């Protein structure tokens, strides 16, 4: 499997992704799935900033990600697929049934969310969505970095 991580992270392409996971795991490409950023070239440039030249960055809508997921899975390089929020990851999983593991990497505090871990704040609705994914045999764990212990999402909801 060439996509080694399907990750929810509201900071998107940042240090933990590029360095913490990217360098440690030898990541060759990052896919950012976000309909808004896909339509905004300036935001795309912003998120390319600081990414090493050897790492490709692809921007996709959920529909484009669903269409291209098979080729990303065949890619000889390792890749990370990122979504900014639970809702987008749920939509992606619905469109790409082969996604069997989801990493909750960073969802920060907002009104209506409850702290579940230092880096995971979820509303009851988001927690229920993740639980529903887990109930469909998707392994959903929270883990900010490869060096920390993954926490099954069912322990957080």
């Amino acid at each position, binding site marked *: 499997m060439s996509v080694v991580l399907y990750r929810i992270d*509201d*900071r*998107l*392409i*940042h*240090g933990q992704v*590029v360095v913490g996971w990217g360098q440690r795991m030898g990541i060759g490409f990052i896919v950012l799935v976000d309909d808004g950023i896909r339509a905004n070239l*300036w*935001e795309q440039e*912003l*998120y390319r*900033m*600081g*990414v090493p030249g050897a790492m490709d960055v692809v921007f996709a809508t959920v529909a484009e990600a669903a269409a291209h997921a098979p080729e990303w899975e065949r890619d000889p390089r390792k890749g990370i697929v990122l979504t900014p929020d639970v809702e987008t990851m749920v939509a992606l999983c619905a469109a790409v049934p082969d996604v069997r593991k989801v990493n909750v990497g*960073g*969802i*920060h*505090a*907002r009104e209506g969310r409850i702290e579940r871990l230092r880096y995971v704040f979820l509303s009851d609705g988001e927690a229920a969505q993740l639980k529903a994914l887990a109930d469909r045999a998707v392994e959903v764990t929270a883990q900010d970095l490869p060096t920390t212990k993954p926490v099954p999402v069912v322990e957080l909801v």
Partner: protein
Amino acid sequence: MSELLIGVIVAHTEVAAALLAAVRAIAGEDAGLVAVSNRGCDRPALTRELEAAVGGRSAVVFTDMAGGSCAHTAVALARGRADLKVVTGVNLAMLVDFAFHRDLTVEAAARRAVEVGRTAVGLVER
């Protein structure tokens, strides 16, 4: 005399506060710098923190790592604004120097900070 520039250090965890403490220890308490941490913040939350720190003044925003969440937030905030300049790769040398050159234009101060910061990085071979 026009108002002096301020500097806002925005960085991961406690880095900004630690750098600010070090600058004050070297240059004095009136260094014109403010520290902001990204701890617990997504981009909208960090944008609010940064806007509050800038407070509508002309500022150089010093960020730790190009491509990090602090730099993303700072660059997005400064977009289209002539009164904000963003410098990445903040180090102590550039901050200490900035404390004594806050009378420059924001553009000149940012360029100077980059030069001083680069000069401060080197390999000591003796």
